[in-house]
Every structure is written in structure tokens, then in C-alpha cells.
């Protein structure tokens, strides 16, 4: 699939449906991390509806591309995208974080098709993705591996162990995306423990580094295509994003890192997203 006019229009409309279902699930759980799900959503939609080779009806297809959500707390966004892609029913989404649900608060690969790794203890998914990419290289490079990390997560030492190791093995089948929303639980990333200049750091670690707007679909798609074309080096995409993207009272707010919206807040968020979606439809 290419990101032609009609596809792009569909992506822009779906972006609102995904955000609404995601917030609805978090509200149903009355716990979760809205900010980091909304910042990651456009990247995730592009991965699962455009970039990755995968078969929702055959989730264990051996040659499928792998996606590892290293910033595991954003998993409601991934659940939502997987449901919309056809891995399981959307009706499961409101069971998020409820006792007995396969939709655990953080990803559990053995409970749900489409979840490739169990994460949530930050820093670990990056390494797991490298292992998958190494396995692919050993077996004739039949699939690519995508990993999404957070910027707060990048304060973990293991992120830098992983960053050192992937270029050593020439993993050009690996693409790591930084959801750079600049806010973590206790405050802004710059204030808590500055990780800048991130792109420079990754270049110094011998990665192919791209910087994009993580909410601009053509830019996202272009970066993934560039990553696929790059040979001999893994690609690192610094995706500049907005925490809470799409809901004005959540955007850029530390308070919305890890708090679920109540009924009224959910209604306000959904109303705003529907109104914005209507404008996009009109423009199309």
C-alpha cells in the first residue's frame, strides 16, 4: 500500500476513531496513560496500516514483521490499532486492565495475538527487538523488526547498551522509533534528566538517524521507506510528538501522563475529536 490521496484521507479520519477508542478503554479501566498513547498513535497507525507486512488473521505467520512496544505503558494505543487492524474484536478494548482480560496494563505477548513481547519494565523492549532482528538475519532476513521507545525510557542504562549493540551487527532490518513527546511522569524530560541531543547521540553510536514530525503521515511513511532502503546500519527515527495529541486539555500536560479521564473529561475529549474529524471529512 502507498500513501496516496485516498489512503491519506482514510488515515486522517481513522486517527480520530483510534484516539476515541483508546481513551474510552482507558476511561473504562479508570487507570492508564493517556498522554503517551495519543503521542504514539499516528506512528502506530502508519506501522500497522501501511508499513509492516503482517496478517491479522494469521498472527503467528513466521515471516511477519515484528513490532515491540518498549514503552509498554502506551499499550492501549497498540491494542486499539491491533483491534482496528483485525487482530481481535474492538469489543475487547473496554476490558483493558480488568481482572481476567488479555488486555493487561502492560503488554503480555502470551495473552494476545499481535503482541510480540512482554514489556513494561522500561528499557527492555529495545534489546528484545535486537534479538528478533538478529534471528531474522540468521534465517535469511525474511522479516523486519520495529521497536518504539519513549524519551523518558531512554534514561534507562539498558537503552544505551542496546544502542551500542545493534550497529555492531549491522542490523539494517531494525528500525527503532523514539516517541519524543518530551514529558515523563514527574515533569518535562529536559528537567528530570535531559537526554538531548538525542539524534547526535544516536549518530555517534553509528545509527542511520532521521528526524520527523511524528504526527505527519507523509513524513512518517517517508521515514519508514528510507529506513527500509538503508543498508548496513539500523535506523533510528526521532519522531517529534506532542504528549496528549488531539485533545486540547491533555496536550503537553504532565498531569495527563498517567491519569485516566473521568466521565465528563472523556465526553469532552470525544466531542473535541469528533468535531475535528468532521472538519477533516469536509475537507476531503
Amino acid at each position, binding site marked *: 500500500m502507498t500513501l496516496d490521496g485516498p489512503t491519506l484521507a482514510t488515515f486522517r479520519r481513522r486517527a480520530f476513531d483510534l484516539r476515541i477508542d483508546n481513551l474510552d478503554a482507558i476511561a473504562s479501566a479508570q487507570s492508564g496513560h493517556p498522554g503517551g498513547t495519543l503521542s504514539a498513535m499516528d506512528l502506530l497507525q502508519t506501522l500497522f496500516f501501511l508499513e509492516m507486512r503482517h496478517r491479522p488473521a494469521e498472527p503467528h505467520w*513466521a515471516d511477519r514483521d*515484528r513490532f*515491540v512496544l518498549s514503552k509498554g505503558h502506551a499499550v492501549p494505543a497498540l491494542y486499539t490499532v491491533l483491534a482496528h487492524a483485525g487482530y481481535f474484536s474492538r469489543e475487547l478494548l473496554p476490558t483493558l486492565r480488568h481482572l481476567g482480560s488479555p488486555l493487561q496494563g502492560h503488554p*503480555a*505477548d*502470551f495473552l494476545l495475538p499481535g503482541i*510480540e*513481547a*512482554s*514489556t*513494561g*519494565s522500561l*528499557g*527492555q*523492549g*529495545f*534489546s*528484545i*527487538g*535486537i*534479538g*528478533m*532482528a*538478529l*534471528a*531474522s538475519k*540468521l*534465517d535469511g532476513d525474511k522479516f523486519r523488526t520495529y521497536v518504539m521507545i519513549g524519551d523518558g525510557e531512554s534514561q534507562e*542504562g*539498558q537503552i544505551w*547498551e*542496546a544502542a*551500542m*549493540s545493534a550497529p555492531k*551487527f549491522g542490523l539494517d532490518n531494525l528500525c527503532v522509533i523514539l516517541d519524543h513527546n518530551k514529558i515523563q511522569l514527574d515533569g518535562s524530560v529536559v528537567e528530570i534528566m535531559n537526554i538531548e541531543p538525542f539524534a547526535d547521540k544516536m549518530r555517534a553510536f553509528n545509527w542511520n538517524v532521521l528526524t520527523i514530525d511524528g504526527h505527519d503521515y507523509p513524513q512518517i511513511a517517508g521515514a519508514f521507506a528510507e529506513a527500509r532502503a538503508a543498508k548496513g546500519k539500523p535506523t533510528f527515527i526521532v519522531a517529534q510528538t506532542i504528549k496528549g495529541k488531539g485533545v486540547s486539555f491533555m496536550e503537553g500536560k504532565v498531569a495527563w501522563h498517567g491519569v485516566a479521564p473521568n466521565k465528563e473529561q472523556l465526553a469532552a475529549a470525544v466531542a473535541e475529536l469528533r468535531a475535528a474529524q468532521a472538519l477533516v471529512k469536509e475537507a476531503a
Partner: protein
Amino acid sequence: MAGDGTPAGLASRDVILTVASRDVIPGVASRDAFGDALARLGETHPEVVVLDADLAESTRSRKFAKKFPERFFDMGIAEANMLGVAAGLSLAGKIPFCCSFACFITGRFDQVKMSICYSATNVRIVGSHCGVAIGEDGYSQMGLEDIALMRTLPTMSVIQPADDLETVGAVEYLLAHKGPAFLRTTRQKLDRVNKDGYVFQFGKGVTLVDGNDLTIVATGGTVGPAVKAAALLAKDGLSVRVINIHTIKPIDVELLAKAARETKRILTIEDHQITGGLGGAVCEALAEREPVRIRRHGIPDVFGESGTPEALYAHFKLDAPGIAAVARDFVG
């Protein structure tokens, strides 16, 4: 500080300094048996991959690395990443053997827990240099808490072979085992306690010596000394049973319960902290099944320290005379 001026937890000086001579110990270290077996089995098992963290020479994964360089990954001195990469390799269908010193694995417990066990991967963690028996390098390099930690993790199995035959059997077994496993290997050479043709049975203890007055339950490098201790005790007229527990999790409750019923006393021997190690595992199993008097003998909630392996085994009473003395005191 302890009363004699040594740091709390360390042995007093005079005990250490009385042991000087160094006997040549026969046998094969389980790390060597492991390295040889892995390099051999790599030929018939292309799904086996090996990772190490700059200790390939010490863990003996080097033998595999030389033979199959494309399936060997030196991850540098970065164990957390190594464990995660191993998990990813397993999730994509490989059987990774992930090697380091046992003590450096326990330092990355969260990665073992989350990346390896929670997903029930097929990663085999090989923790070498276990126990005070590594000697001169001292406490920072000694795996003394690994059994206790690994045992708490759901899906994880814990294996510690007592000699070269058992090590080869364990490595062969692990090719087909489902789920994660921890294999504890030694730097020191081990007496052979099993006979030629030995068949490794996962989860089954091995009765090496029969007896009725006391059962010594030992694991790994202390099994050889335990067997010798039983011979010393026999001269005193004590009939001692010796059980080798190579699979510490899941432990052979049936065999232990039978021994408890028949000999009434259990003495556990291990080169590991007695808290949570083999001693802890045996107590947990028998307290619920066949409560009898148990004495746990091993590293008694203190740190290890530098010395020759022989001096340390004498100091901690893990050599044959030491184990025999502890047994006499227990039966007393």
C-alpha cells in the same frame, strides 16, 4: 564490625591462614563439560545460538564461538542487553544459551524476570563461577545468591550438575526443554560421582549412597565432597544416604520425602547461601510434606572472600572432613 576486628560477615584471619597447601584436584569442571557439549551439539542443532558478555573464555562458550562464529554473539560487558537480546532470539524461534558469571546474571534480575521468564522464552541462562569455590577473585565474582533468586521466578527451572557426565546430560536435555532454565556451572574441577552411561533425568534426584541414619542432600560441586564424607562417616559406624539434587527447581519431593521418612534427619550441603538455596528449597518441600529435622549447611548468611578454593572449602566446612564434622554434630 565483628568483635575480632574483621568486617561483619568475613571469616576471621587465623582460620584462613592455617590452610596453605594446594592439592591437585582430579576431574572436569562443569564449565568445561558444558563448553564441549555445546560445541558438539551445535552441529546437529542449528537453532542453538550463544551469547556471552566478554567472558567467553571463562564460561567456555568460546568453544562454540570458534566453531560457529555466525551463531555466537559477544554482547560486550552489558548483561542487561544480552538477556533481552536472548529473549528476542527465543521469541523468534532460536534456542539461546546466554552465558556469564552467575553473580552478574543475578544483578540483572529484572531482565531475567520480565524479558525471559514472563514470556516463558526458551532462553537457557548459564551462570558459571558459582560458589566460594572460584577462590581468589573473591566475593564480587562469586555466585552465591543465584539459586535463591532464580527459584522465585515462575516458568524458570534451575539445574546444577554435579559432574561432567551430568553436565553433558543436562545440556542435551535443555535442547528440548520448554521454557527458561538456569544452568549453574563451576570453575573448579569436579569429582565424577556418576557412572558411565549415566542418564540425566530432569527433576529427579539421584541416590548415590544408601544409608539409614542420616540423609545428606547435596548439589553441584559439593556432591563429590559429600560422597567422600559419607565414606568417612561410615568408618564411625554412621550409615549415611547421599542424594544428589541436580534439578533444584522443580525439586524431587518424592525422593526427599522418602529419605525423610526413612532416615529422620536431612542435612543439606551447598556452595551457595543457605537462605533460599538448596537448603531453603528442601525445607519448603519437606515442611509441607514430611517434616523432619533439617540442618542447612552452606554459606551461612555471610559474604564470600578471597583465598584458595581449598582454603575456602576447609573454612566453610564444605570439604569432606568439614561435611563429616557437621554431620556428626547434627546426629550428635
